[in-house]
């Protein structure tokens, strides 16, 4: 029994753990710690960094670009999260109906999930093309003159929300389906025997027992979409009002870091983003006790 216990065993532990632990320390933990340092400097490549304390954070709070980006990020989340939540819940409940052929809907609704944001952005950029795209063509058929979607900030925001819902709904619907299928059938049978109607069953059985899934979906959506980048970077048409105005925090981080080389300032901004996500997630974890129902086995 070589190495099953004793000193020899620790050599094995080291052998198995070393690559992963060293990698994690080098590429995750060390960069994270370094980033805190960067945030406290005026580092602009290729110059040397100087320590400036919290100056970056102060500059940030006085920056119109930052507030504009924060405004669009929050606005996007306020429009997008409820839309995709309701759509995915409805789709998940629909999936749960055991109809032959449902597999087709499930497979097709997951296709946008596996496609990259780059491809999805390009397709929808073409779909929202004001002159030659199908959206405005269809609108013209019912007598509406469609807007120049991806040329103006507000319509571009709507277009981004529509595209994001289309891309993600299949994923969250599948999560909801998983939650729905874990609800024991006996509860529904008992309710039916007691003469409960569809709406009562939905409100008093499905919703409470689905709250853990709902909570997980909301947390994931908010953490993910506070960091939205690809679509905002790719979809607005270059050199238009949408391109100039529509921004999010990660877009600002990337612009500052890679277009202006302001590594210190951009790092500070990324930590503000982390702080925002942390606080919101923390509040949600506290508030969940009031509405999330965990069944005790």
């Amino acid at each position, binding site marked *: 029994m070589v190495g099953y216990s004793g000193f020899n065993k620790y050599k094995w532990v080291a052998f198995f753990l070393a690559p992963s632990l060293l*990698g994690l320390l080098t*590429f995750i933990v060390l960069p994270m710690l370094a980033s805190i340092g960067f945030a406290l400097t005026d580092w602009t490549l290729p110059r040397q960094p100087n320590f400036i304390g919290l100056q970056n954070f102060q500059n940030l709070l006085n920056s119109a670009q930052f507030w504009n980006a924060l405004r669009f990020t929050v606005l996007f989340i306020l429009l997008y999260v409820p839309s995709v939540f309701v759509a995915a819940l409805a789709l998940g409940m629909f999936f749960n109906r055991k109809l032959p052929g449902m597999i087709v809907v499930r497979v097709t609704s997951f296709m946008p999930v596996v496609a990259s944001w780059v491809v999805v952005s*390009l397709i929808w950029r073409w779909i929202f093309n004001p002159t030659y795209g*199908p959206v405005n063509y269809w609108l013209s058929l019912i007598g509406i003159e469609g807007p120049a979607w991806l040329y103006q900030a507000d319509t571009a925001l709507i277009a981004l929300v529509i595209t994001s819902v289309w891309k993600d709904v299949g994923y969250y619907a599948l999560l909801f389906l998983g939650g729905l299928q874990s609800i024991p059938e006996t509860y529904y049978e008992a309710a039916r025997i007691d003469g409960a109607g569809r709406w009562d069953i939905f409100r008093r059985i499905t919703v409470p027992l689905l709250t853990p*899934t709902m909570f997980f979906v909301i947390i994931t959506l908010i953490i993910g979409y506070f960091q939205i980048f690809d679509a905002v970077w790719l979809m607005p048409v270059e050199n238009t009002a949408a391109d100039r105005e529509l921004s999010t925090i990660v877009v600002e981080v990337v612009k500052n870091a890679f277009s202006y080389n302001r590594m210190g300032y951009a790092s500070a901004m990324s930590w503000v983003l982390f702080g925002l996500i942390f606080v919101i997630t923390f509040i949600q974890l506290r508030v969940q006790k009031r509405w999330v129902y965990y069944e005790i086995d």
Partner: protein
Amino acid sequence: MRLTKPLDVDATPAVASREAKPTALLSRARFWTFVQYAVMALLAITMVTPFLWMISTSLTPEAYVLSARPQLIPEEISLESYAELGRRIDLPRVLFNSILVAGLGTLGQIFFAAMAAFVFSRMQWRGRNVVFMLYLATMMIPGSVLIIPQFILVRSLGWINTYAALIFPSLFSAFAVFLLRQSFLTLPKDYEEAAFVDGANWFTIFWKIALPLSGPALATLGVFSFMGLWNSYLWPLFVARRDEIMTLPVALSFLQSETRALTEWNIVMAGSVVAVLPIFAVYIVAQRWFVRGVVITGIKG
């Protein structure tokens, strides 16, 4: 309850015509079945049409692309845009880069994560829980915080525009360790005890017992990490901009900004088809692992 007249307001024309047969008096249940199938058709069409539009545009000759009346089935079909795409981007090279990065990245991530997951689940040692908590803690750091310091690190290592920059930072995932640990924990202890009696060492147990018995977990992790790497955009955009090292999403986004006049949509869509077909193929083949992955992450939450 019976309806004397078919309620075809919400139904598709095809359904309505079938219902209109004089012999069929619709029961309420049958009516709802029809409505459900109509909804199903509508959903599938909504999800698929943008992709069909992509394929259709990619097959349209340039002269027809900018037409006032968009057509899903092109009047004339041509592969001209794919030929032109091949002239604009070095397709074999870009495809090779994408496959290499996603393939090696996935294999490496699974292998290192499995090794770590093995010591966290099958071996007893002091400090195990503390180190595992450290792993879990790294999952809290959002990617957007890591972009800049990782870029600085990769730059100081001289890795900009190398495969190392594309592959290494994605190899180490605490989430992958967490996922595989869950699977390893379910393996019965008898196997490894028997193996020890036969003189096996820990690596043999890892390689010959733990890995082969964890096929589903490895496959699930594999498809998701392959998908993530194949679709990755933000990181490659800033560390791999040179033509020789570029991956598909970056090449595609550059193609889009080069065709600035916004008239060559057929070429952009041809590029999208090339980028999306391989991952669709993976999805169709490995569909059950994708579904399993979503359900597992849901349970974890």
